[in-house]
């Protein structure tokens, strides 16, 4: 039960994002995808989640190409938190989280266990207390946590998250990352997330994927890849290393 990308080619008009990328994401692993703006992190995430078809190469889940799965079957295995969705949702926080159960429900009436799953998901992000509130009355950060709850209610095997920390304060950033880390380490899920926070990536991800501007992609253990030298090259910006009690962090020089 692993995600495997085999010799993947991706590009956007006028730019090659990656060539011959081969990658395996296993249950229990937590991956951070890092790179400069426009380096193709989202495009890569969408291709790995089966939302777009790569120019060449194939992405498989449990040995079967993603394109061969019926959409709902795939949605029970791979869930996505897009960067932003726009649009206005009229309804309560609970109704919103309940939409995550769509691939599991018969599509007509919501069963009692769907309601329970939605509430449990809201509890995990600390939003169960606001379950009855209208979603459009929440703050940006609260809404982000509810979006994560919808993904938890979907209960996929692989979580693909595009900047899951946007709008979150420092405390909630740590909380969400701890939750994602727990999904991988204790519940056997696989997590793949686009992050800009190198400090967090170093602390919570065991694997990293660095997308350089020239189209080179390096994948491997986070501890080996997240070095000052690599990050300087990645972000094209001078960095100063600051030692901390349990690792390193970098600030712009």
């Amino acid at each position, binding site marked *: 039960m692993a995600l495997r990308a085999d010799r993947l080619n991706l590009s956007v008009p006028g730019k090659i994002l990656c060539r011959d990328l081969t990658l395996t994401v296993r249950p229990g692993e937590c991956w951070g995808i890092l790179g400069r703006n426009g380096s193709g992190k989202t495009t890569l995430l969408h291709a790995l*989640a089966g939302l777009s078809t790569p120019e060449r190469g194939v992405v498989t889940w449990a040995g079967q190409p993603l394109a061969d799965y019926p*959409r709902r079957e795939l*949605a029970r295995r791979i869930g*996505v938190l*897009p960067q932003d969705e726009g649009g206005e949702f*009229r309804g309560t926080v609970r109704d919103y989280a309940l*939409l995550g159960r769509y*691939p599991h*429900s018969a599509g007509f*009436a919501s069963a009692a266990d769907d309601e329970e799953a939605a509430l449990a998901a809201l509890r995990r992000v600390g939003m169960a207390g606001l379950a009855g509130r209208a979603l459009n009355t929440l703050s940006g950060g609260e809404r982000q946590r509810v979006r994560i709850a919808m993904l938890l209610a979907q209960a996929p095997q692989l979580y693909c998250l595009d900047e899951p920390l946007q709008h979150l304060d420092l405390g909630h950033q740590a909380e969400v990352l701890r939750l994602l880390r727990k999904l991988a380490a204790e519940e056997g899920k696989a997590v793949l997330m686009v992050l800009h926070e190198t400090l967090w990536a170093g602390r919570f991800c065991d694997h990293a994927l660095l997308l350089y501007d020239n189209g080179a992609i390096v994948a491997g253990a986070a501890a080996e890849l997240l070095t000052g030298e690599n990050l300087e090259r990645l972000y094209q910006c001078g960095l100063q290393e600051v030692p901390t009690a349990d690792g390193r962090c970098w600030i712009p020089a």
Partner: protein
Amino acid sequence: MNSHLSIWLASALVISLGSLLVGIALGSVNLPFATVLHALTGRETGLAADIVWQLRLPRVLAAFACGGLLALAGTLLQALLRNPLADPYILGVSGGSAVAALAAMLFGLAAAAVNLAALGGALGAVGLVFALGFGRGGSMVRLLLTGVVLSAGFGALISLLLTLAPGAEVRGMLFWLMGDLSQAQAPGVAWGILLAALALAWWQAGSLDILGLGEIKARSLGVAVRPLQLGIYFTASAATAAVVVEAGAIGFVGLIVPHFVRLLGAGGHRRLLPLAVLAGGSFLTLADTLARTVVAPQQLPVGVLTALLGVPLLLFLLARKV
């Protein structure tokens, strides 16, 4: 939550039946409710029964079906285009239909031929918007703009036809353009389309909710986005075309009723769709009853009444809620 829905539905059904009864009772000759009920149950014969069965019942049934269809089409298009300004006419169905129907009137064709032209024009507009808006790389923004631009073009052609028309014809044309149920016949077709479209839409209610989250999120949740969009587009177009052919371009119902129902607190489409249909049907039935009675025996175009009633109602609700 489900008991909630049944309470809402029950009240909406009562209001709907009430509006139908009022529509049957009132007219150039007012009938007491007892007479109406006796006529409907076959215990009353004679002139009153003829008025009920031959004149009023077909008319209120046509009005109700058209109102329901417009509200359904508006709800669907607002979900498809993710735009609260979308109404059944935004994609040019009525414009195409009107151009063909007015041209047929200008050439002095019979009423049946005008209806046929209206149907042809509506289908032509649906096909044109579909081909241009859904083609390679099509997006909902492109679909919306295609519809708006074509509507503007049709509007110019309508003005041209009105200018060319001899004075005697213009009045009939204006009635057609403003929406008029006095020519409405065969409500059976409209009812068939209404029930089929509502069943289809209700079946996809969960997917419609999820479409509101954006295409990427919808696909990641397992919704087949493109087939769903096409299904909504054709369902809404068929609903609109049925109304336009039956009664011309009746404005405001498709825009106002979905918002009205939402402002009353119906969020998800499972609740929104049936309530919008019932509310739209009741609204148009009452508006048409007024159109027949305020200056009886003269009749007003019902489109004037829907706007005169609908605009202040929605403005009031908007001001109160926001």
